[in-house]
């Protein structure tokens, strides 16, 4: 009887605050940005209104998408983002899984370790990016001190605009990404591990199964929903990389590399931000929109593939 009651007006009151903000800052922008991405020769004038169609434009079509896809900087950004995704996601997921399994197998100090591993999550990306920059600085950095102690030569980690510098900068970016992303993965994996029924392990022990066998035949299958979840969120997070890159170079919001090549490690998100108007440039909003729609499509495609794969592999 109560479940059939109608409380339309009460719902309207309760939902109103959230809906006002959602409509203005989320639903409308989604539609508006999508429309803008198809507007050719779009000119933004601050007094023309918030609707894309009230601004001046020449036609409707795919021109901005073509412009983006032909832009060598976008292709660099896409390549860079892909390289980062392919390298940092597997490393951080596997390391996170290893750490969680180890944590789950110890009794003493578990809490202290967990707190330490979580610390990077509650830090400011820009602040800690600067720390990595200083640690990897060529002349007086901690990392080069270690390199020299082991008999190597100083490496120009973040200041070399050549191909060698490209990969050394990737090393720094990967270190920082893995360092700051580990906390979340450990947290999710550990809570997953703790919810696995101990009886499975008892049974395996009685049967005399080896540790490796227990890991592959019990832990991984029972943890597979968490592994799938973490892989998807890590992929999405890595595709949206931006702050970590500008933070380790530490030279400003739109500088993605050393002095000789400021677009060296530009990412797709960085590319989109660079197209927004600022004090220095009028920007190109419809090109930025097209870039962001392309990013959405890439993320959707990857998520789709992963959901498809996990449907076959994930054990629920």
């Amino acid at each position, binding site marked *: 009887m109560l479940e059939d009651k109608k409380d339309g007006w009460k719902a309207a009151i309760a939902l109103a605050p959230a809906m006002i903000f959602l409509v203005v800052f989320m639903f409308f922008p989604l539609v508006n940005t999508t429309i803008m991405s198809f507007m050719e020769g779009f000119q933004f004038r601050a007094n023309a209104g*918030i609707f894309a169609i009230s601004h001046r434009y020449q036609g409707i079509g795919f021109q901005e998408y073509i412009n983006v896809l032909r832009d060598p900087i976008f292709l660099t950004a896409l390549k860079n983002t892909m390289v980062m995704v392919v390298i940092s996601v597997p490393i951080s997921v596997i390391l996170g899984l290893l750490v969680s399994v180890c944590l789950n197998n110890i009794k003493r100090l578990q809490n202290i370790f967990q707190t330490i591993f979580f*610390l990077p999550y509650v830090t*400011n990306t820009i602040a800690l990016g600067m720390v990595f920059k200083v640690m990897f600085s060529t002349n*007086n950095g901690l990392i080069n001190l270690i390199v020299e102690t082991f008999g190597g030569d100083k490496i120009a980690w973040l200041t070399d605009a050549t191909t060698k510098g490209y990969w050394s900068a990737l090393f720094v970016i990967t270190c920082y990404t893995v360092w700051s992303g580990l906390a979340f993965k450990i947290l999710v994996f550990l809570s997953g591990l703790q919810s696995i029924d101990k009886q499975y392990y008892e049974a395996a022990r009685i049967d005399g199964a080896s540790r490796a066998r227990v890991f592959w035949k019990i832990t991984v299958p029972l943890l597979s929903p968490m592994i799938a979840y973490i892989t998807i969120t890590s992929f999405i997070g890595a595709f949206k990389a931006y*702050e970590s890159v500008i933070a380790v170079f530490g030279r400003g919001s739109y500088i993605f590399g050393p002095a000789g090549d400021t677009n060296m490690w530009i990412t797709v998100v960085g590319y989109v931000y660079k197209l927004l108007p600022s004090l220095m440039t009028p920007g190109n909003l419809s090109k930025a929109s097209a870039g962001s729609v392309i990013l959405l499509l890439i993320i959707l495609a990857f998520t789709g593939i992963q959901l498809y794969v996990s449907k076959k592999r994930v054990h629920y």
Partner: protein
Amino acid sequence: MEKEMYFANEKALRSYKRKRFLSQFLLYSFLVLVAIFILIPFYWMLVTSLKTTAEADLLKPTLFPKYIAWENYIYVFSQVSLFGKYFLNTLFVSICTTTLVVITTVGAAFAFSRLNFKGRDALFAVLLVTMMIPGEMMIITNYMTISVLGWMETYRALIFPFSVSVFYIFFLRQSFKQIPNELYLAAKVDGVGDFKYLFKVMIPIAISSIVTIIILSLMGAWNAYIWPQLVANAGPHRMIANGLMTVFTDDFRTQQNMQLAASTIVTTPLIVFFIAFRKYIMRGVSRSGIKG
């Protein structure tokens, strides 16, 4: 578990104990290594921030400062006259955002978990789908909206776009849903209205989830970089993360000790906050998605 184990003889017991000791030793060694990897940047941040400029520039860096230069911290505040202002801006924006977030989240979570209205499930499904869409799509139009409204370089531009979060609504709805239906029915019999039930029963029961939301929202403002960079980076309304970037690029371009003193100043409140509210933060994050 160990008490239930029986061994054929002393030798088997000893071999079991040895194996167990070895595996525990390996586990702890690995965890200690990872802990060192996590802690080194914090250590280096603190140590460098306390070196004199001459010592920080040494070609062979010292692992511990010879002279502990506390004055670096005073120097940062005196050189960057607005650094204190950035703190207050961030505090103000985070408190306003969080207040609005609580209002919008409690209302929406209440409607989605307790009320019946047409299209409820469809609307909720639409909200869930939007969680996958990259924020950059919203940022482009929001930038236009803010500039057309004349809100550039105002607190409003920093507060309103972040006054609602689909994730928080989803999170609180889950907690509301766990409240037993019997309570609601009993309240109905006693003639308690829906909104009174929300304030007298649902909010008190789900208060720990609301505290989690408050903490995550406050932390979000502390970390915000991209949006403030676009709409409020000219000076008086600048937020702490953006202020920090200008400290690196303008005020202390070459002085690493000062740069990391500034980093330490920004990081310390977050760490203290985390240690104080560890339980709430970790609970909230394990259900969330991506940082930022």
